């Protein structure tokens, strides 16, 4: 029997530390493991004894790429526990800051992490030498997302202005209006990004995924709605743990999530798009159709197009919010703590992010549970590799390794989030 082993120390262009292990025997893939060796930081444990008012600032430190998602899930869970709901312009501002994070995070992935795969560059800096105008467009787009987060939150990474009940300070109409011209240019750049990504070469690869996302009848989902799937799931966020289970496997410092009977599922842009197409703005729907996307896209490599459609949506939605904005009377509503348990799920750029907190009557955290999107996608990523690798076994090891890395990067895995970098080991025999 022929034996061959390939080892790569580190998967690049993902956020965090992990690796891939693939075992091949007689041209059959017999084992695939997405290994996550990001050192654990024990957030759920260290949150115990902290105040409800601190959870969003602490959990934002789980991930510097999507801090808003952590802040949003945490504050919504607290508000759920205390029986209050933030509405009106404060809620609109929360959608606006989330738009900023989607634009920033998606653009980072589309231009800096994912596009180099399709165009054959090791990174965006080298890509910029041949495609300076494209890279400049990406940088401007990213900057527009960061401008929203910075204006509303004080800084791009770990912004400071979000609190339970709303914000510390609400912007004036004039302040928000300073973003308008930049966002209009960004919306045009996003449309060009959809066209650019749609023309990339995609491998012919589709699977029948179970998509899970938040769904809201009137809006593309950020932070409110029910959890739905294309296989009949339709539950309130507080029923999450009844339907999803986490298991701890030896090769990963991130817990694997499954839906009912151990089924793998898919969260993130492809899932949101499939389950919420009608909630996209007319402009975003039009761009998707022009790009040749069906209403459901099952090719994970094409997630780069869907991500671009979502950037366009987020620019459009941000402009809508700014246009209709009237400053709220108060920057935050009063939120008196009470004993109870609060649940929230919001749409991080990479997919649903679940938080649950149990609190005492002073609002001190008794226990916490956090399920980030990348840990939910782990099993699906492994299954993709299991189906994808056999098609390319005739490739030289270096090419095959690159294909595998690309298959993982389709998910924009944020491994810091998943608690926890990628090492590819090919064990061939």
């Amino acid at each position, binding site marked *: 029997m022929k034996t061959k082993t390939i080892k790569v120390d*580190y998967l*690049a*262009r*993902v*956020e*965090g*530390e992990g690796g891939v292990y693939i075992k091949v025997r007689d041209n059959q893939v017999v084992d695939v493991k997405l290994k996550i060796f990001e*050192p*654990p*930081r*024990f*957030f*759920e*444990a*260290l949150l*115990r004894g*902290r105040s409800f008012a*601190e959870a969003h*600032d*602490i959990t934002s*430190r*789980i*991930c*510097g*790429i999507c*801090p808003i998602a952590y802040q949003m899930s945490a504050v919504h869970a607290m508000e759920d526990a205390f029986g209050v709901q933030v509405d009106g312009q404060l809620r609109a501002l929360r959608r606006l800051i989330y738009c900023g994070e989607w634009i920033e995070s998606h653009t*980072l992935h589309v231009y*800096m*992490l994912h596009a*180099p795969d399709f165009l054959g560059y*090791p*990174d965006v*800096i*080298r890509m*910029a030498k041949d495609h*300076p105008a494209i*890279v400049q467009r990406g*940088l*401007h787009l*990213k*900057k527009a997302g*960061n401008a929203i987060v910075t204006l509303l939150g*004080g*800084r791009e*990474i*770990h912004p*400071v*202005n979000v*609190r339970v009940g709303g914000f*510390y300070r609400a912007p004036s109409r004039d302040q928000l209006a300073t973003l308008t011209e930049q966002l209009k240019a960004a919306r045009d750049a996003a449309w060009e990004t959809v066209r650019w990504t749609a023309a990339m070469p995609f491998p012919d690869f589709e699977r029948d995924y179970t998509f899970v996302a938040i769904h809201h009848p009137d809006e593309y989902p950020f932070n409110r709605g029910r959890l739905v799937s294309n296989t009949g799931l339709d539950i309130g966020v507080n029923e999450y743990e009844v339907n999803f289970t986490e298991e*701890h*496997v*030896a090769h990963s*410092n991130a*817990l694997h999530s499954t839906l009912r009977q151990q089924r793998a599922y898919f969260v993130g842009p492809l899932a949101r798009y499939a389950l919420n197409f009608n909630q996209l703005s007319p402009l975003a729907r039009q761009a998707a159709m022009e790009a040749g996307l069906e209403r459901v896209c099952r090719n994970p490599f094409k997630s780069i197009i869907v991500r671009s459609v979502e950037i366009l949506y987020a620019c459009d939605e941000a402009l809508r919010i700014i246009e209709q904005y009237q400053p709220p009377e108060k*920057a935050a509503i009063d939120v008196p703590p009470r004993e109870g348990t609060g649940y929230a799920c919001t749409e991080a750029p990479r997919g649903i992010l679940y938080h649950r907190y149990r609190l005492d009557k002073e609002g001190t955290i008794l226990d916490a549970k956090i399920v980030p999107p990348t840990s939910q996608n782990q099993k699906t990523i492994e299954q993709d590799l299991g189906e994808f690798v056999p098609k390319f076994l005739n490739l030289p090891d270096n090419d095959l390794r690159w294909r595998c*890395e690309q298959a993982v990067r389709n998910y924009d895995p*944020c491994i*810091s989030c998943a608690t926890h*970098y990628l090492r590819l080991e090919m064990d061939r025999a």
Partner: protein
Amino acid sequence: MKPARKPKLAVWKFASCDGCQLSLLDCEDELLALAQKIDIANFMEASSAVVRGPYDLSLVEGSITTAHDAERIHQVRRWSKFLVTIGACATAGGIQALRNFKDVKEFVSIVYARPEYIETLNRSTPISDHVRVDFELRGCPINKQQLVEVISAFLNGRKPNTPPHSVCMECKQRGTICVMVAQGTPCLGPVTHAGCGAICPSYARGCYGCFGPMESPNTESLSRQWGEMGATQSDLLRVFRSFNAGAEPFRKESEAHED
């Protein structure tokens, strides 16, 4: 004198959220210009092309929490002419240093069903506990203008200009009225290292100390002031025990408010 070759920059990650290294990619206006001056030789989050060391400048993000990382940092030091830590994790142990005050085994059992799969050290420690560090850049996260300043300083053989005074000075510089005096909002600004630009007070919020302690902070006096404003012992314990809990002055002050 201009070097004949481009200096080589490496970025390393230990236990962290990736936010501080992301600050480099967030330099949308400076990134391509920077890449013309320096060779980004090892930056796994951004590139799959790795140029072997030695490196002229290493930026290190994250704290040491595993036996493997405690070894790896020595290798990074050997490969690096200058080693600069970026952020609260690398400089003070980060939020994950909260374990230093507790039993880490119990922490593992809370998060993981199979604790035997998890390898971790009892304490989260800053890089300077393990190797010689040439400069420490503060912040959770770092400020990107300060990052550009530090890179530029090291590559030009000068000292970085990052004032060690308190956040109060930055409020004065930007003309923010003192939130503690004017609104009675408790603020850590008087004891916190400058660098963020005094963001929180400009958003009507008290500073929460994410840049860690300034040079010789009078934390005791500030605690007394907070107490007069109604803060309890447990409030004070928590405010000093957050993103820079492992920094000596904040650690000591938090311990003064333990039961």
